[in-house]
């Protein structure tokens, strides 16, 4: 059933996704050559990989708790943070034992968390390598925010679609009702919308909250607000023509 509160959840979720992407340390292609600090893949893709793993956690939590709001969004955030902490740690094992480089950031002289010196450990002609502690923590915060955002969007859509009697039906031997599929598909769509917006704002690589590019965050929030409002409205309005939609 359509409700303005669900729309607000989707907009808030979109803003959290867009903000979370800015925290995640992304090295892009140069990180694979140990030329940049961060995890070596694209901004959108890294955020999506962790955030959508969070969505799987949120989906299971929503189904097992019977739609408990707090549990769904916390499990979304924790699952996403778990994914990125494993990913960044295993990537660091690769940097240390596979490439033989220490983990270092080129954007700050001292790590704000461990207070360890950074610039001396950056090899010649590179912008740092691996994911040092400050970027690691920043990534966990970012993935948590993105996971919570994705879970909020999923919760709003699932709660909205669950009110339609036809969407509560199941298909064949499949235990999950239709609305789960629909809500998951739209949540993935809104997740990608916000990731791509944030990715354009970052423009390549970012090390985390200590990176100067992080100051561009307010622009991204404004952009996420607009795209999530439009995307969320479309996602919610598909039900209004159906019996029980309003």
């Amino acid at each position, binding site marked *: 059933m359509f409700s303005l509160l669900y729309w607000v959840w989707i907009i808030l979720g979109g803003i959290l996704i867009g903000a979370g992407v800015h925290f995640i340390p992304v090295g*892009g*292609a140069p*990180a*694979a*050559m*140990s*030329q940049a600090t961060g995890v*070596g*893949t694209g901004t959108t*893709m*890294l955020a*999506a*990989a962790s955030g*959508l*793993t969070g*969505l*799987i*956690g949120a*989906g*299971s939590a929503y*189904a097992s*708790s019977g739609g408990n709001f707090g*549990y769904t969004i*916390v*499990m979304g955030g924790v699952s996403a*943070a*778990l994914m990125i902490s*494993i*990913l*960044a*740690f*295993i*990537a*660091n*094992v*690769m*940097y240390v034992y*596979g*490439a*033989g*480089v*220490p983990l270092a950031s080129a954007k700050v002289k001292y790590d704000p968390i461990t207070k*360890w010196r950074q*610039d001396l450990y*950056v*090899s*010649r*002609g*590179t912008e740092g*390598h*691996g*994911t040092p*502690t400050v970027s*690691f*923590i920043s990534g966990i915060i970012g993935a948590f925010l993105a996971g919570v955002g994705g879970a909020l969007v999923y919760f709003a859509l699932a709660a909205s679609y669950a009110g339609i009697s036809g969407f509560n039906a199941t298909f064949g031997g499949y*235990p*999950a009702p239709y609305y789960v*599929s629909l809500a*998951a598909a739209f949540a*993935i769509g809104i997740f990608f919308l916000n990731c791509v917006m944030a990715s354009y704002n970052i423009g390549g690589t970012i090390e985390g909250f200590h990176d100067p590019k992080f100051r561009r965050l307010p622009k991204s929030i404004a952009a996420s607000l607009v795209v999530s409002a439009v995307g969320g409205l479309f996602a919610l309005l598909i039900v209004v023509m159906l019996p029980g939609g309003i």
Partner: protein
Amino acid sequence: MDPQMMVELGALTLVGAAALIAGVAEDLESDVGSQSNPNSQVQLAPQMGYLHRLYNKAISGEPASYPFYAAIGASTALSVLSVTGNSGLIGVFFALVAGAFVTSLIHGVYATTSYMGRVASQSRFGQPIYLDVLRTHTPVLMAHGFVANFSVLLLSWVLIAQHFSPFPFVVLAFIWGIALGGVGSAVGDVHLGTDRYYQDRPYGSGVNAAHSGSVVRKAESGLRNSIDCAWFCSKFGGPLTGLGFGLVVYLHFWKEVVVTSWWSALAGVIIVAIFVIMNTYLERYSRQRYGTYKEEVEE
């Protein structure tokens, strides 16, 4: 122990093993095809005057291509199941094989057009299209892609059959495809990009940006091709990618199987904290073991 939990843990072990194999095969496939991040070097090399016999395929980033393979495979498997109507173990197994097979055919088409297109666009730099490279590498990467996709389909199917996730098969395979591509691109590519492509540079430093594109073109015997790279990366990059993806999938559901409700959120937080501590130790170890690159200058 609760019998239900034992069954779930057994299923989860199968899921973790499938994820491990998927990770290894995915990384080696991207090494043979030089997809994803290190492809920037393979693409750049002819422009810098270094002609090579490496396979050059960048269909898209791995986290974008793998979900689509997985989704195509999952849809095909569901179609086969709906036609055969055999939802027993054998029926499902062959449906998943059929899904992964169709996926690998599509993968082969994309890889061929990508190799021909990308290398043809470099004709002004004198880079030839090696038909023997195309003929020998394409089946190898299709085979690795088949193993990776079959494993993703298998683990998604087990997750649904055991009610670990309410998401439909195609959506679940799609999301695990993104996670698989993310891990493969973040972990395995470093071994290929930093070490294998620049083996003539001193070990133990990042690749100087000034050396970008000067990839190693000579092999232990003859000229290097991308299958040599997969052989090298199968010693460390591939297994570590498998370990990473296996851990992601296994720990994600382990925290929900062993404990329930809010305790599973707490278990997740504790696992994250353990990884933070391990990472800090790893960082300190790397600094003490390898030392600095520059001397400290008094300011």
